[in-house]
């Protein structure tokens, strides 16, 4: 145990995701030895992110305004909506530059063990958005794991009554990879989701 402030800082870092006690200690001592100015900038950045950043009132992506810049962008296609689990998934899809529609961030996936049910996710808000008839297709882009698939099934069931086209991202082989390196599960999925070519 260190004295006072140092230990407090180590404990705070230890609470962050992906940081164990050793890393927490290393970061704390790094801060202790670093330039005061650099560290003030870090403190300001943390404060700013808590003060300024909010969640978009429409899609729940992170933003500094009432709505995010994707929701505000008039050039985006209003008829297609991509549903993802987290804001970082929005960034992942954006990097492809091939999707020009809008997003809806659920804020997680259905996970009873962690106590997350549909009511804890932004599903009611999603239904609200769909009452607007402009949206013609919903693309479900939740993670291809058990919880993500369950969330996708749940959404597909809810939305099937509304009469909007619903699609799910394909899963299968990674592009540029070798067939022989694919594990059995992925390869099995690729077989199930195969495409007819002629």
């Amino acid at each position, binding site marked *: 145990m260190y004295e006072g402030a140092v230990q407090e800082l180590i404990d705070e870092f230890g609470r962050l995701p992906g940081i164990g006690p050793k890393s927490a200690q290393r970061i704390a001592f790094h801060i202790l030895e670093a330039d005061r100015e650099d560290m003030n900038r870090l403190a300001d950045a943390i404060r700013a992110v808590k003060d300024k950043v909010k969640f978009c009132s429409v899609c729940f992506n992170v933003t500094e305004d009432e709505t995010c810049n994707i929701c505000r962008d008039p050039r985006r296609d209003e008829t297609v909506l991509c549903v993802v689990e987290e804001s970082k998934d929005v960034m992942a899809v954006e990097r492809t530059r091939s999707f020009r529609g809008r997003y809806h961030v659920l804020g997680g996936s259905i996970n009873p063990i962690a106590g997350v049910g549909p009511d804890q996710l932004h599903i009611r808000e999603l239904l609200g958005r769909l009452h607007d008839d402009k949206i013609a297709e919903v693309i479900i882009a939740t993670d291809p794991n058990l919880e993500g698939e*369950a969330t996708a099934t749940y959404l597909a069931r809810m939305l099937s009554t509304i009469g909007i086209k619903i699609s799910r991202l394909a899963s299968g082989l990674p592009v540029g990879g070798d067939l022989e390196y694919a594990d059995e599960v992925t390869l099995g999925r690729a077989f199930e989701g195969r495409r007819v070519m002629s």
Partner: protein
Amino acid sequence: MYISHVSLTDFRSYRQVDLELVPGTTVFAGPNGVGKTNIAEALGYLASLSSHRVSNDAPLIYFGADQALVRARVHRGDQAVGLELEITAGKANRARINRANTVRARDILGILRTVLFAPEDLALVKGDPSERRRYLDDVLVALQPHHAATRSDYDRVLKQRNALLKSARASGRLSSSHESTLSVWDEHLVTAGSKLLRGRLEVLGALEGHIADAYDGLTDGSKPATARYMSTVGGAMDDEQDQGQPGNGTSGTPRSPLMDLDEGELHAAFLRSLALQRRKELDRGLTLVGPHRDELVLGLGTAPAKGYASHGETWSLALSLRLAVYRALCEDDSRPGSKPILILDDVFAELDVSRRRKLAAVVADAEQVIVTAAVVEDVPDELNGRILTVGPGTVSA
């Protein structure tokens, strides 16, 4: 197939031991507690990546050492493969094939095939239903490796669904949100579950004839051995019976009614059974229907084996279950030199003279048989193998 060379480093009681083996029978003889079974265990582990004695890896490593190393040279026809497995407690095991770069341990599955008989097999007959479910699942994965994923998928869905049922019970009522989420988990449970169920039924179909034949061959044949899959799925067919308690129906029907259903029909039957048990599941906060609560009912003559079979009968039936696996694996891969290696760990001591002879005759068909015995005289002469004497931490001819 056969193994020509085994070397153990810091495995169990061995700091270092190198063994040259030949096709045919090899008997490891020595007093209790010198490490005969450790050799059998090492070979079994190399084939299945699991021990028949312990569920975690720590006891496999020589006390005080960091890791154990098992190496073997496996011959299949005129092809030889060098296997190397590094076992580290609490970390992922690593393997090497033919001295190439290290690969994931599970990549070596299927290269060495063994069928291991051990005193622990008595639990197959006398133990909980989970022992028999694992028996079927292990054979399923050995025959169709992709089912390893089906099994883990099913377990994970089951955990999530049970968590949901528990939270619904805790909140005292089934809210509409619980209900709609539950139906999603039903869907996923049934998808993975009917795949697993179909797989188990197919495996049983491949095994049941062999189980009966093997038991017949080991005994005088007065009581036929039967194996019947009793599922909690299919409640729609006899919904008055408590489906949570399979095994009390010992009617003479030799086949499970599910045997002829395809995956789609099993899917539908599973959904129906879930619907019927909904009330009860919510009361108990547990999933009551599915492959995780099924039972493989073993019978001798008209009586169930569990509880009714004598010690000798139990042993013979347990051996028959393993022999059936051997036969099924032989059928699965009939290329020359593909027969699994039989490992008989301390099995002769428990059998009478005529059953010893019969077992010896049955296993004579294998390319390589590894036997461990505390008393060499227990091993019938028919096996006429090479005898290696095991002392504490050493093996000598």
